């Protein structure tokens, strides 16, 4: 193959363009970055509109001390105010020696006050910023976000990682939902569907004066100063319900599971029912699989929403003495299980109607099935929803009863 000098020059030029025009020319050094674990959003003190709390990972401290890691906290909490989120984020550079990298963040925690005032403007940056993954978890806290980020966790060195794992494991109870930023924003912009997010709250750790404290080992990120400082941790609790971008109230754990039943998001969990028969005592039933279906129907010109749940569970624990493996007992248990599920859903629907927030997405289902009707109802859906009749039917089934047939009970 022979190349004329003209084509050779052209080829060289194209190759060079290929290298220099693609725009990823950005050499950084991982060890010079401050990796962000979690970000908290709070209402700022005037004139600041927002206060940003950043939980930064001190990578050198994450390893256990024997492996060269330190015994000091693995995170550093930084709190900055600004007129916008990005403004505050850049102001953080005035305090941080390392460039803050948002791409590794696990969660965004939103303070209740800010949530109630409307969070859409502040989510814009979170949504838009190239470094942030939209798979991060959204959490809403009762109170301010800052103490949540400052709270520690006994099992994980990076508290945000604990939040991440807890949200991921929320299916174990289905008492809190798991909501990614992406889903939250989708719900925010969807018609006939209101967003919701799991709640997180700060709780005190039982503090006994330990040798650590007297030695002055400072492992607490909360409440600087003071000898017997109170240490805090956090736990997931309840669900924040939004109307538009404004938070309007909370659903408790049973109401939350009612919500998740309808949305078909219950994967696992425990239902406790009274033992059938004469003996007193509770019985735990584990949810193995569940499926929820929402069908809007027009009955004599009235809009009705039918919710059908099919569920399968196992008998896992019995506090009573009777033999529950008899077929008639089993069917009674199944009935009790269905009732419990229906009650959870009813409680949830009642709460949502009270708040006027259609977190179930009934509106979206109506929109899909009766688009013409939706044109009329959509504008005043919140009010329509309050009056919407919801029919719940549950088909619950029990399959297995574990390794023993009889109750563990003395003769």
């Amino acid at each position, binding site marked *: 193959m022979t190349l004329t000098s003209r084509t050779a020059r052209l080829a060289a030029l194209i190759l060079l363009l*290929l*290298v220099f025009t*693609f725009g*990823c*020319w*950005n*050499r*950084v*050094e*991982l*060890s010079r*970055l401050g*990796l962000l*674990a979690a970000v908290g959003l709070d209402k700022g003190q005037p004139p600041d509109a927002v206060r940003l709390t950043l939980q930064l*990972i001190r*990578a*050198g*401290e*994450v*390893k256990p001390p024997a492996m060269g*890691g330190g015994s000091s906290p693995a995170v550093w909490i930084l709190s900055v105010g600004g007129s916008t989120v990005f403004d505050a984020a850049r102001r953080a550079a005035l305090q941080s020696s390392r460039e803050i*990298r948002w*791409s*590794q*963040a*696990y969660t965004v925690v939103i303070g209740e006050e800010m949530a109630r005032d409307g969070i859409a403007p502040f989510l814009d940056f979170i949504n838009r910023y190239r*470094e942030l993954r939209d798979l991060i978890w959204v959490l809403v806290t009762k109170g301010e976000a800052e103490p949540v980020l400052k709270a520690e966790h006994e099992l994980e060195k*990076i508290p945000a*990682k604990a939040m991440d794992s807890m949200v991921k494991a929320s299916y174990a109870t289905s008492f809190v939902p798991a909501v990614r930023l992406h889903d939250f924003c989708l719900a925010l912009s969807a018609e006939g569907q209101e967003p919701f997010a799991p709640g997180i709250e700060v709780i005190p750790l039982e503090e006994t004066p330990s040798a650590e404290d007297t030695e002055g080992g400072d492992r607490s990120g909360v409440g600087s100063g003071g000898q017997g400082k109170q240490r805090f941790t956090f736990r997931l609790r309840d669900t924040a319900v939004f109307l538009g971008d404004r938070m309007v109230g909370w659903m408790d754990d049973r109401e939350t599971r009612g919500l998740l039943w309808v949305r078909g998001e219950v994967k696992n969990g425990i239902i406790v029912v009274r033992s059938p028969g004469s003996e007193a005592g509770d019985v735990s039933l584990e949810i193995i699989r569940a499926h929820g279906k929402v069908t809007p129907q027009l009955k004599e010109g009235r809009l009705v929403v039918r919710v059908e749940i099919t569920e399968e569970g196992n008998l896992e624990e019995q506090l009573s003495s009777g033999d529950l493996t008899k077929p008639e007992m089993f069917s009674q248990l199944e009935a009790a299980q269905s009732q419990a599920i229906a009650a959870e859903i009813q409680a949830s629907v009642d709460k949502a109607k009270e708040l006027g927030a259609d977190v179930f997405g009934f509106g979206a289902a109506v929109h899909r099935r009766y688009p013409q009707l939706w044109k009329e109802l959509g504008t005043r859906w919140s009010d329509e929803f309050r009056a919407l009749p919801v029919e719940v039917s549950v088909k619950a089934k029990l399959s297995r009863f574990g390794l023993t047939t009889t109750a563990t009970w003395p003769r």
Partner: protein
Amino acid sequence: MRWKKPKSLPEPIKTVTPRPARPLLPGDSVWPEKSSSETSEELTPSSRFGQEIPAKLDEAVRRLKSGIAASSDVIVRELVLSDEGPRAAVVFVDGLVDKKRIDEYIIGALRQADRYGLSGAKPGVDLSSVTAILERVLSVSETKEINQFSEVEAGVLTGDTVLLLDGSSTALDLGTKGWDKRSVSEPQTERTIRGPREGFVETLSTNVALVRREIASPDLRVEYIKVGVRAKRTVALMYMKGITNPAIVETARKRLAAIDVDAILSDYAVEYYLQDHFLTPFPLARSTERPDFTAREVLNGKLAILTDGSPFSVLFPTVLTDFFRTTDDYTGSYTVVTLTRFVRLLANFITFFLAPGYIALIDVHPDLLPTDLAVSIAGSREGVPFPAIIEVFLMVIAFEILREGTVRLPGMMGQTIGIVGGLVIGQAAVQAKIVSDIMVIIIALTAIASFTNADYQIAATWRLLLPFLLVVAALFGIYGIALFALLIIAHITSLTSFGVPYTATVSPVYPGGYLDNFIQAPLGMLRTRLLFTRPLDKKKQKPYRQPMEHPDLAAAQKRAERRRGDGQ
């Protein structure tokens, strides 16, 4: 799919033209002091071409003494064969010959014949006739009548003994080669688990015999070709008549004939002169120390080239996938072999891409790392003063020094190097925070992975290209790696080996090519030879059908017992 005939063959060479005599340089002091009467023609060996052996022994000896026999290791032993008979001289090089054979079967035999002649008990042998001596006196199997003076020199220098007879312009070249040689032993570079333990040695005849023992076929052809102008070295072409494409052999002959150098001192020199391109880091010929692998490839349609003095054979044509095949692949179940091939491929991939991928991820795209991994890497790099690219270069350099040191070091010191290298580079450097522990893992893995190939040349190529890829990765990240890989692929596709595209079996595809490159099909399915060599006979086996189901052993046992019972 089809490839064109090799375009890059050299023009046919008409004759071997000896190099024109050049003036003696000050360094060329191999020749003895010349008396002024001698002409300068005798200064170069090539000038002796065409000179006949003088009939007068004195003249021949005088010429020898001014020629090769001026060297102290060349011995000229003059004899008087009988009282009235002619005189003779035996010429050989000390160290290249088996002296016992000369003493007993040449000189001893001549003396014996002389004695018979004197006693008159039997009609004596006419000791003035070369033919008579050859036919009736000498007890040497390998003989040749020669009459050119250059042949005398060539014979003597390759370990033969030349018998010169007064009054005859014909001399006898007697095969008495017998120098100290290494015995056939296990190959140092290519070990196998179940394969034969024989490796080539430094003696060509032994090596050829080793291959011949693998292929006992009249079709196996061996061609000796002498290469080199000042010092001749024998190169053997081995191929199968009726299988190997004659164009391959012809090309090799022509390219060998075109070599015009002082001396060929290694098999690589032969490989260098025979390959299609030299502006490439990629090896264009597979070299192997194993006679069995050589034989396998010769049967597959390749040409094997063996060089005297080198324990390696060079195989042409060779394609890239050939470097992932080893002898061990044919001594075990195809299931396991397929797995080990994958491991080998993966190791090649790791050698080339692991360190650059790491650099790209942590230096250009840290966003792509999962959080836990990012934290763990950042934690291990905490306190390391260098950027990762400097760190990786430090480690690569340290490894190359270590590797080079180990190769040069005598065997028993190897362990020392291991300890020193492992401690210094592994632990101390990490503890001193010069490098991070993850980097040590990466470089160690790269190093180990580079030693998985049977032929070390291809891994050496990866190691050569690695620094460039590292720089590109540090500057442009994964995109840069992709571009560089493209560049290398573009280069590979431009290579040929004896006209065969270097990427053959992958592209162009040949029937059955995929059955034995990345995976290995069951032995019974490997029905064709390596078709990219364009063999004259494509199939190497017919489909195998088992002639019978195995009989029931218990029934057979019973039958036999019954028969024995009947017999008693």
